[in-house]
Structures are given as C-alpha cells and as structure tokens.
C-alpha cells in the first residue's frame, strides 16, 4: 500500500532531501566507528579515508583495560587507568536513580501545576520554568559547597542530588501533557471518592505512559552524557561515571592531542547501551514522544 503511493515530483524531491539528510546524519557516526578501528600510527594519514587500512581491535582492548599501561602508551594511548566496566555500572546506577526519581517527582509537580488550583501555583510554575534559564555556571559553586557541607562528596547521593529532585524541562513538558488529559475522567474519579493522590496514581499516571517515557528517555540520554557534576563530585576512581572516565582520553598534556582511537572506541561502547535501549523499546520510545494523549 505504502509503496504504491504515487511518486509526484514533489515527493521525489522530498525523498531526495530526506535521504541526503539521513546520509549527513549517519556519516559522522560511521566516521566514529571507523576511527575506533584505526591503529594509533595511522590516525592522521587515514583521516580522509572512509575505511581503515589496517583495522585493529587494540583501541577496544585498551578501554577494557586489556592492555597494560606501558602497552597502552606504546599503542599511542594515554595509558590512563580506564576501567570502562566499572564506570559503565556507575553510569547505569547514576542515570537510573535520576531518571526514575526525577521523572516521578516532576510528574507529581507537573500534575499539581496542571490540575490543582493551589495558592501560588502560577508563580511557582513560572519559577520552575525559569530555572531552566539559570546558566549552570551560576549554580555550580554554591551547589558544590552545599554537597561538601552535607558530606556528600564522593557519594552517589551527592552525584544525583542536583538532578533527581526536579528539572524544569520535565515539569514543563509533563504539565503540557497533563493539561491535555480529559478533565472529566479525573472528575469521575473525584466523584468516585478518590483524592488527588489516588487520582494521580490510579488515573493520571497510567494514562501518561507515553509522555513519561519521553521525559525518561530524554533524561536518560542527558544524564548518561552528564560530565561536569559527576566529575567534580566523584573523584574516586570507583565512583566515576562513563563520561568522566572517557575524559582521560582527552587532552592529557596542555597541548596534547586526544587519544582519538581510544576516544572513538569508548564512544562506540558508551553509545551502545543507549542504542540498545532505542532498539529494545524501539517503537515505544520513538513514538512515545507525544504531546497529547487520551484521545
């Protein structure tokens, strides 16, 4: 059926542009993948090629700690202590806690802003949205000092603290959705004797699966890639998240070049979990990005 759609000239042009955009989108990713298989000495000589001359797995061995420091340096790497497995586990915990708790908290708040007319709700909502506009450089130092005062440095709680309670974007996004939920379903529940909490848990939440997934997915991606805060809080090797661990592939010396091969291999490895997520929940996540539900 879809294939028989008539190919008008406009459609052809649209297809052409779409394919071009796909190529532009995917090409750099292929480049990343290619570079991850290039041995150190050939990085710059093959930088304008589409395929490596002598593909190697040494970059991957390096990031999984299968090469000794000396071997790694000899292979053009940084020799930094990378244990991508530990940091991957840390990243999963870090991201997991934030995504679950933050999404839940934000859903609660967003629901209240959408549905419960309470004193100061407009003002507070405005403030929540405005929080998106505070440049993070402003909050960095005070937040860090706060974590120190609370004794949360080098702890998972300290790492998730600024993120897991609330996020302006998530509240804003979910409120837009809750507003569009049919109001009479909630009123029916109200007549059925459900209080606001029960309406939220038994009615609003189950009906909001799609936007919740959207927020959760976006948060997952952002937190999976979050660098600065975990970097500052988790100085201990055993606490490092993936982006923090990856950082050691970047500039080791003031003028030094990144360890491109290691960096690209690590990028591939770091992206795999998110890609798996995309494929596992595939249709659901991609299609969960929704603005109105219920209808």
């Amino acid at each position, binding site marked *: 059926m879809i294939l028989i759609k008539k190919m008008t000239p406009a459609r052809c042009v649209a297809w052409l542009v779409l394919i071009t955009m796909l190529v532009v989108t995917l090409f750099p990713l292929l480049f990343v993948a290619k570079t991850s298989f290039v041995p*150190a*000495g*050939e*990085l*710059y*000589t093959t*930088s304008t090629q589409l395929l490596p001359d002598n593909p190697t797995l040494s970059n991957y061995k390096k990031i999984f700690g299968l090469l000794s*420091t*000396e071997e790694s*340096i*000899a*292979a*053009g790497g*940084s*020799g*930094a*202590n990378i244990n991508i497995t530990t940091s991957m586990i840390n990243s999963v915990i870090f991201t997991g806690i934030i995504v679950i708790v933050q999404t839940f908290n934000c859903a609660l708040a967003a629901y209240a802003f959408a549905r419960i007319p309470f004193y100061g709700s407009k003002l507070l909502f405005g403030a929540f949205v405005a929080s998106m506009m505070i440049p993070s450089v402003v909050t*960095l*130092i005070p937040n*860090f*000092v706060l*974590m*120190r005062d609370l004794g949360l*440095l080098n702890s998972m709680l300290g790492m998730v603290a600024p993120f897991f309670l609330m996020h302006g974007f998530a509240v804003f996004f979910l409120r837009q959705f809750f507003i569009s939920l049919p109001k009479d379903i909630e009123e029916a529940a109200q007549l059925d004797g459900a209080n606001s909490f029960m309406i939220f848990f038994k009615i609003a939440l189950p009906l909001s699966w799609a936007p919740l997934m959207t927020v959760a997915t976006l948060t997952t991606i952002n937190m999976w890639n979050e660098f*600065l805060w975990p*970097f*500052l809080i988790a*100085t201990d*090797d055993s606490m490092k998240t993936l982006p923090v661990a990856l*950082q*050691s592939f*970047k*500039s*080791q*010396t*003031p*003028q*030094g*070049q990144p360890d491109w091969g290691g960096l690209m291999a690590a990028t591939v490895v770091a992206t795999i979990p998110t890609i798996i997520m995309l494929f596992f929940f595939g249709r659901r996540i991609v299609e969960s990005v929704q603005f109105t539900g219920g209808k």
Partner: protein
Amino acid sequence: MKIQRLTFTSLAIAVSASAAHAVEIKYVLWDSNQLPAYQQCATDFSAKHPNISVKITQSGWDDYWTALSTGFVSGTAPDVFTDHLAKYPEFVKNNQLVDLSSYIERDKLDPSIYTDGLYEVWGKDGKQFGLPKDWDTIAMIVNMDMAEKAGVTLDELNFMTWNPQDGGSFEQIVRKLTLDKNGNNATSDKFDPNNVAVYGYQNPGAGGMLGQTEWSHFAASNGFKFQDKPWGSQFYYDDKSLADTLDYITGLAKQGLSADFKNTQSLGSDSMFIAGKAAIIPQGSWMITYFDNNVKSKYHWVPLPKGPSGKRATMFNGLADSIWSGSQHKEEAWQWVKYLGSADCQSVVASKGVVFPAIKGMAEKAVGAQMQRNIDSSAFLTMSQSETYLPPIAKNGARIDSTMESAIQSILLGKESAQEALSDANKKVLRYSK
C-alpha cells in the same frame, strides 16, 4: 539496642581504619604519560613511610584546573598537586599554597641540586611555594624522509640560523621542504603557493602571553624580553623585536611556506606533522614520547635556529609540586613533596624517559634512557644550555593571556598590523598587571 550496636560498629571501623591506613595524601597531575613514573615513586615512598599512603589522580589539563579551583573553594582540594608557573601567582595571592621555606630550612634541603633557575622561579619575597620536579625546553622536530628527499642534511638542520628579514638558512631549508601539488618546492619559480601539499614549517598557533612553542624563541633570539623581572609589572609586548618576529611568521603563511593560521586550529600542527603535511614544527620536550609513538616516518629533533643575537634561545619552563594550604596533613604532604623533589624519585622519572627531571644531571640520564628506546632527544639538552628565559610571571595571568591571544590571532589572520595590535594589547596588559 540497635543504636548502641551501630555506634559500636562504627567505632570499631574507625579504630581499625586509623590503625591500618594511617594518613592518605591525595596527589594530582595532568600528564598521563607521567603517571606510571609517579605511581612507582608513590609505591617506593610508601615502602619508606608505612604510615603514609599516596593516592594519585590524573585528569586532563582543562579539567585539572577546574577541579582544583572548585577544590580550593570547597575545601576539598588535594594535599599536593603539580603546579604550573602560569597558574601559581593567583594561588599565592589568595594564600592557597603552603610556604615551604621553613620545612626546607628544617630539613636542610639544598636547592642548588636543581638545575639553575628552576628553584628560584617558585619563590617570592623569601617564601617558597613549590619544589621543582622537571623542566622543559623547545626544539624542532623534522621529518627526515622529507629532508633527505629535498637534499637537506642533518648537519644543516642542526645549525640553522634565522633572522626576521630573509629568514636565514632556516627559511632556505623550509623552502626546500615545501612542496606544491605538482612536486615543485618553494625555491622553484613554478611553485604554486595556493596548492601546497607539504608545508616546510608550521607555526602551531598564537600562543597567548607565552608563545612558548610559537614565537617566543624566535623573538628572544631577536632581542625580545617579556617583562622587567618575574612578578614585575612592566611588559614589553609592544617591542619591535616581537612585531618583526610575528610579521615574519605571518609572512611564511602568505608565501605558502606554512599553512594559514585559520587552517591549523582544529587538529593543529602536531597532527599535520604526523600526517606528513608539515616537514618541520617546533615542540616542547614533554611531547617526545607522544611523537615517538605516533610518527611513522623517520624523524629527528633538532635545536632551534640561532637568531640575530647570534644565539639560540628557548623558554625554560619548569613544573613544581605545591602543597595546598588547606591540607589537613601538611607534614605528611611535605614528606611526599620532599620525596618527589629528591634524587630517589627523580631518577625513577628519568629512567622512564618521559620528561627531564629538575635535579642536575638527571636530564642526561633521561636522554640516555630515551637513547635506549632509539629516541635522540639531545637537542633539548642543547637548548637548555643555550640562552634560556623564563615564562613571564604576573598576577592576572589569565586575562593577560586572553588579551595577547586575541591580539596575536588578529596579526596571524592578517587583520591588523603587528606593531599596531601589539601596542594596543600591551596597554591593556600593563593595566592588568598593575
């Protein structure tokens, strides 16, 4: 019941912890190439001082300083850290560094064991803020395959001369090494400066207030001086010697002997050299290992050319280890710094051949160690014995750096004449350094 047990348990943990682990000193550095050497030092140190353990963390250059600043503010900075001349004045100003002079006096340390000048730059008004760990100089790395093809001998390369007017023998060599797409070199009339395949020489960049690998060596050999004295407030960036140097460097790109500044700022000159797009580039001694691992062609380190002054000149820079004034274990930290600055540790560093340790004679040992790996780094030693100068030291270094970076960029991009841009910039610099 429950509370009691809890208290007891934590008490037990506390007791056993203090018994087993004693004091842990946190130490940070940014160069991962050096990590194995210092890890070795830490192991040796703990063997000698069983009550002190050292925990080393490495993070990249940019993140290193961010983390350190945040650490100072929040009181979580490491006890000991690798310090840089460009950064330490600000720390001194804000009392973040421990004055080591009383420890040095008490333990009767002899500063003269360090290569001349290295110890002094870390002191001010009788106080001492760091113990030297290594030094670095600048040399030039040459692609010898290209040199041979162009008929340039190693001897010629080792004894280059330079001046800002005609470029001396340096420019002649660069011309021979510069090839266009058709294989003509820049001495030929058929040379096409718009289609260059290999650049004879590549200037790394603008270089900010130091010009460490970029222009300071040319300028210094042309009579340039950064400032009146370390910590001095008088700067001479508007001097003609620098303007002429920068005009000369800009001119190289105009003739097609170097790539345009704007084309070299992403991956940089090092990558161009490795990729065979540049035949000669200047670089510092800390990059010896990097190039050896990455350059696949035949290469050689040669000393910088002699300038109009008749001498070679190089920036002589040194790192030191400093103790943070907020450290809870200053005595133990001092023990570690002392060890880092001792022959015991520095000979370990020398044997790894990654950098040149600060103690006299150790550099030769490092060169020897590199020789064993078939790396000839003697050019850097040669340079250290030439005319050397220290990097400028000033408060507000970051702002001066930013100002100079912009000014020199505009010269290299051909947006402003060198003399004009430098005069303007120097006025600002003088304001900041007051």
